[in-house]
């Protein structure tokens, strides 16, 4: 059974999510989309389906992990799968103030959702003019950026190039991995937004954080979210690294927003690739290392109050 890709659209109030949705839906794409929104705005195109919902976040105690999920999404996705017409993709718009964790975790913990759909990306729309202020007075704005697989930096026409660079530096502190697309009025090609496969482990071939372990003393820091990148050229012990990651996620999962890693495991010809959202981790052996290829291991953590030295120690102890 094929899985329908789901793009989660986050962004602070007024950043341009609705504009982006309208652009996506009005483009001549010949595809059929379902859009799950929180309020019927000026959305609704002939061939597509718009579903109105109330975000219902609840705690789910699933054996050893306890996390929050979106109950309404579980129900709506289940209902959509009963339709005769199948969708090419589903877009979920979250409210401006939403923490992205519950919506993302929904795709990892509910068996029915996992079977029928797959998360394609978390796409965050950022208002270039106001984001620095929002980062000062809210914590959701930082979380939405930290969670993103890609960022649409919108309203670039309203700020100077210098200001844009400042904004991009700030975004990079929170999230060194997500590509940033600069837009005016959210004008961006559809294929840049959809079909990213950001959660597809087999597409995780390289991790090149743009800003490596920035200086945490920056006075502009308004949130405690930052990233830590760890790497080594020495092969890792498979058991040790797995155990370390599991323990880390179990103990620090609340503070770890996202993690991605490509690992060179001793005596293995394939890369071990993984990614995690809070306490939920997904890992698999990926592409083979080529003969003569320079093998490496790299992990990028994005989270709150990360202790770089402690992470570095734990990681180093996993060298085979």
């Amino acid at each position, binding site marked *: 059974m094929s899985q329908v890709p789901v793009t989660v659209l986050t962004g602070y109030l007024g950043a341009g999510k609705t504009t982006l949705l309208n652009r996506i839906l009005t483009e001549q794409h010949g595809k059929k989309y379902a859009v799950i929104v929180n309020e*019927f705005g000026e959305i609704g195109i002939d061939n597509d*389906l718009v*579903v*109105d919902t*109330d975000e*219902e976040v*609840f*705690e*789910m*105690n*699933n054996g050893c992990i306890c996390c929050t*999920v979106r*109950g*309404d999404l*579980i*129900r*709506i996705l289940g*209902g959509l*799968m*009963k*339709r*005769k017409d199948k969708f090419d993709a589903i877009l979920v718009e979250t409210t401006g103030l939403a923490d992205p964790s519950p919506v993302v975790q929904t795709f990892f913990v*509910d*068996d*029915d959702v996992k079977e029928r759909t797959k998360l394609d990306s978390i796409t965050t729309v950022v208002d270039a003019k106001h984001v620095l202020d929002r980062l000062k007075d809210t914590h959701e704005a930082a979380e939405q950026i930290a969670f993103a697989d890609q960022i649409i930096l919108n309203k670039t026409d309203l700020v100077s190039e210098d200001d844009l660079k400042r904004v991009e530096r700030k975004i990079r502190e929170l999230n060194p991995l997500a590509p940033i697309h600069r837009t005016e009025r959210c004008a961006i090609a559809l294929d840049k937004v959809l079909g990213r496969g950001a959660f597809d482990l087999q597409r995780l071939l390289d991790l090149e954080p743009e800003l490596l372990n920035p200086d945490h003393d920056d006075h502009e820091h308004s949130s405690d979210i930052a990233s830590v990148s760890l790497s080594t050229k020495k092969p890792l012990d498979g058991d040790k690294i797995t155990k370390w990651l599991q323990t880390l996620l179990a103990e620090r999962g609340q503070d770890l927003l996202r993690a991605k890693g490509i690992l060179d495991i001793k005596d293995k010809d394939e890369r071990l690739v993984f990614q995690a959202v809070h306490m939920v981790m997904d890992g698999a052996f990926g592409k083979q290392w080529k003969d003569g290829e320079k093998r490496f291991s790299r992990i990028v953590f994005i989270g709150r109050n990360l202790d770089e030295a402690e992470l570095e120690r734990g990681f180093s102890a996993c060298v085979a």
Partner: protein
Amino acid sequence: MPKPKVTAGQQWRFDAPVVAIAFDAEGQGAFALGDGTLRTFTPGDAETQTVEAHQGATLALTAHPESGFLSGGDDGRLVHAVPGEAPRELLKVKSRWIENIAAAPETGLIACTAGKSVHLLTGDETIVFPHATTAAGVAFDPKGRRLAVAHYNGVSLWWTKSAEQQPKLFEWKGSHIAVTWSPDGRFLVTSMQESALHGWRIEDGANMRMSGYPSKIKSMAWDRRGRSLFTAGADRVVAWPFTGRGGPMERDPVQIGPARDAMIQIVAAHPEADIVAAGTTDGAVWFEEIGDPGTNFMMLNAAKIAALAFSPEGTHLAIGDEEGNAAVVPVV
């Protein structure tokens, strides 16, 4: 185990998933489909009649208290469909889906969920009962005078007489996604997101937790005497005892049917004999008499069984799957 295909009875291949099956009081059957239609049939006949009930998908189906069917859809409509007549809209809500319907033949009342609200149709008026979170399941008590609504953190009980009331709340932390009332009216059981059942004894609110399932319990059915609750969610049918004052408290369930490498999706109880039927994730359907080791086993197709229903006298079993395969087989 050999895998006999369905041979007896009638078979159809619809071009939309089967969502639900029901039989009305007169013995007519209906398949509710993901294309918004109902396909009504008479057991034994190869003909079906199409009722255009909804614009999107049909999401819920149950027998009308008098005749015909009640269906709900993602177009926000509650429809009364009588075979051979034009469907009649009973209710329409804006931008919400009608996902659950309950009907009480004893009082003629009809209730359905729409988002956080439950709409009670008395025939004269529509009473709306609000909840803090989505109403995920609805069931009448056996007398048709009280309504149980499953939602996040428990179940609300409403009297069907008036709109002006505070519901009685049975609380249990977590997301309750379906509810059923025991036929003697003494117990309520909900299915939970966390792959467990929760129960309450109505008289004192005593809690009972029924857990150990490997997957969500999507279907529950009471045996004809109300002595056991058959449940899906495991590789065999799990039957909880509801005799005695405590029901399943401190008692173990009984497992019924062949253990196979597939999960039970749907269960149904025969109305006149001690027979339970089950449909699985790999397209198998079986029914078996309790205590009799023989199982009537058949494969419909390879898709998940989505719905099962016995005809009112138990002469036929209707089957439907997520790919639109459907059958009505004689029960012998």
